[in-house]
């Protein structure tokens, strides 16, 4: 699915990622954990294509293509989706318009015909119901005045409709109460299948109780320093990061 090799990246001239390598196969769910400032959010920003992050060396191959030759929207159309840690508010653009414009842009890129309004609305209503979001949401501006939980649910709703191949979940659990976390997790789990992969970035083991990862990586100072299974997350929760660092040293 995605092959990240020896990735180095800078933000405002400061090196953040310092040789990160990671390989995700179709159907796998990976979690990246790590202390603040270790480069977790930089990784997702670089993969999604933010221009204020400078890639200095290394490569990323996404579905056989060099990711860094693709524009932001090309990455999205190829099936990469970043669920934002802080989804932006976009006053004046309705959710329904964003969903339709995004879906049809992606379909067009794949050479599929645009989805007609009735079929589109049927799809959207189904997903709204699944995410326990009221229909009135469609006519509200994107994320405007949404609570933290609503914003995250909106990210997952978009994911359900766009059906990306690789989803980057950047601290999708932050700001969620238990009920919202359950709904968000159910949304994610409903999309898990042999052809789709997930990369979760999180601080807390709690999320992993709901979305079980196949692999857990520890990111520190821009590199993955340890990889394990779900039990690694439990150990981190219990003992913090210091012991991993010591083990490496």
């Amino acid at each position, binding site marked *: 699915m995605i092959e990240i090799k020896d990735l180095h990246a800078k933000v405002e001239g400061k090196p953040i990622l310092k040789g990160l390598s990671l390989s995700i196969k179709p159907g796998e769910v990976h979690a990246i954990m790590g202390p603040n400032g270790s480069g977790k959010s930089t990784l997702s920003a670089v993969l999604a294509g933010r221009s204020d992050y400078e890639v200095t060396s290394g490569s990323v191959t996404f579905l056989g293509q060099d990711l860094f030759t693709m524009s*932001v*929207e090309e990455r999205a159309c190829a099936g990469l989706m970043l669920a934002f840690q802080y989804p*932006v*508010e*976009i006053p*004046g653009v309705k959710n329904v318009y*964003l969903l339709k414009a*995004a879906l049809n*842009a992606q379909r067009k890129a794949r050479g599929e015909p645009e989805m007609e309004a009735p079929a589109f609305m049927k799809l959207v209503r189904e997903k709204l119901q699944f995410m326990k979001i009221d229909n009135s949401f469609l006519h509200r501006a994107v994320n405007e005045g949404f609570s933290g939980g609503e914003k995250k649910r909106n990210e997952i709703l978009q994911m359900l409709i766009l059906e990306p191949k690789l989803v980057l979940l950047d601290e999708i659990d932050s700001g969620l109460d238990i009920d919202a976390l359950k709904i968000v997790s159910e949304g994610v789990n409903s999309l898990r299948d042999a052809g789709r992969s997930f990369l979760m970035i999180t601080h807390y083991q709690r999320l992993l109780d709901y979305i079980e990862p196949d692999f857990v990586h520890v990111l520190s100072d821009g590199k993955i320093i340890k990889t394990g299974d779900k039990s690694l997350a439990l150990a981190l929760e219990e003992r913090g990061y210091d012991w991993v660092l010591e083990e490496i040293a």
Partner: protein
Amino acid sequence: MKQYAEAFTAFNRDAENGWLKSQRIAAFARFEYLGFPTSSVEEWKYTDTKALAKREFKLATGYNQSAAAELFASKGLTLDAYRLVFVDGLLSPELSNLEGLQEAVVIEPLSQALATELELTCGMMGRLAGIDVDVFTALNFAFVNEGAVVRIGNNQTLNKPLLITYLSMANDAAVMSHPRIIVAAGANSELQLIEHFIGEEEAQNLTNRVVEGIMERNAKIHHTLLQQPSDKEWWIGRIQIDQKRDSRYTSHQMNLGGKLVRDDLVCDLNGEGAECDFSGLLFGRNRQHMDIHTLVNHNAPLTNSYETYKTILNDRSQGVFNSKVIVKKDSQKIHAVQNNANLLLSDQAQINAKPELEIYADDVKCAHGATTGQLDLDALFYLMARGIGEEEARGLLTLAFANEVIDKLELPEIYNLVETTVAGQLPHKIELELTQ
């Protein structure tokens, strides 16, 4: 100035002696006395008329009928309306249509009104926009000859909108026109007035249009001004409205360009319960210069005024927004809101925004604000990260900025035109009923 003097002498020489002829002479003298405004005149501080003053414009003596018909067919609004069409300031009888007017309603070309009901027409003219208002209004008065007279009787609702279209043609020599629209709306009457200015590509004319409207008790006027001049064109506009008790005037202005486009909009709220609501969009490109000045006089208590103007400036275009609300000493319990937001899409675009309040009463509710910014890059990234192309994403965000004012446009034809101009061709809109 000399060219104006020559044109004026030729224009007024053969007019019948009387009030109109002498008023025109007085108006021209006023124009000559004031001259083109310099930047030391407060109202013209940010709009330079030097280039305009240097230009030479003649009065049109005729026009090419088929070219006018073609321009009207390609860009004119097709809505079902009473129509008056002027080509370079001259009435186009073949494109106009006032058939089927209801009783107690008069709509006629100004030239006709002056020919048939001189005294009545002169009595209405200049009451609000007389020769002493400003230099361009004086110039308009000096050359006043064509335009429209609209009289809506008491308790009458005009059964179709009135559409006044100004066609400005690309002639060998630049022409000037000075249309004047006079509206008298009777008690409890209602009127929808749409003015559409269309410039042929390469047209380089001066249009100096004045509207004066008197609104009796509980009268309603919905006024839309859609401006699509060419990039080389000059437009000076003034609207003066006098509002009696409980009357309501709404103005939607869509200014889509021109070399220099300046509008003054003035409402006098003279009776309790009178209300005016202005909204507008100024959309500039290239080196266009657009300027809106509004003034609301709260001369009576319990009057309301609302203003929302948005400016979107590309390239090296410039905008000026100046709104003034004056609350007289005994005008208590008034409500006035002025909103202005400006979006600069280029580093070289420029806006001068100045909302002003002068309050001499003590029990009032007034709010004003002006903001200027650029497209939100985080929002742009968010849309693109969902697969939407950059151009479309920019269009969507630009449109979103303008939505508040363009959503007030009730006619789909105008809405679509403005939307396409602002945002480019967006993928098809979702039918609202399907999403209920």
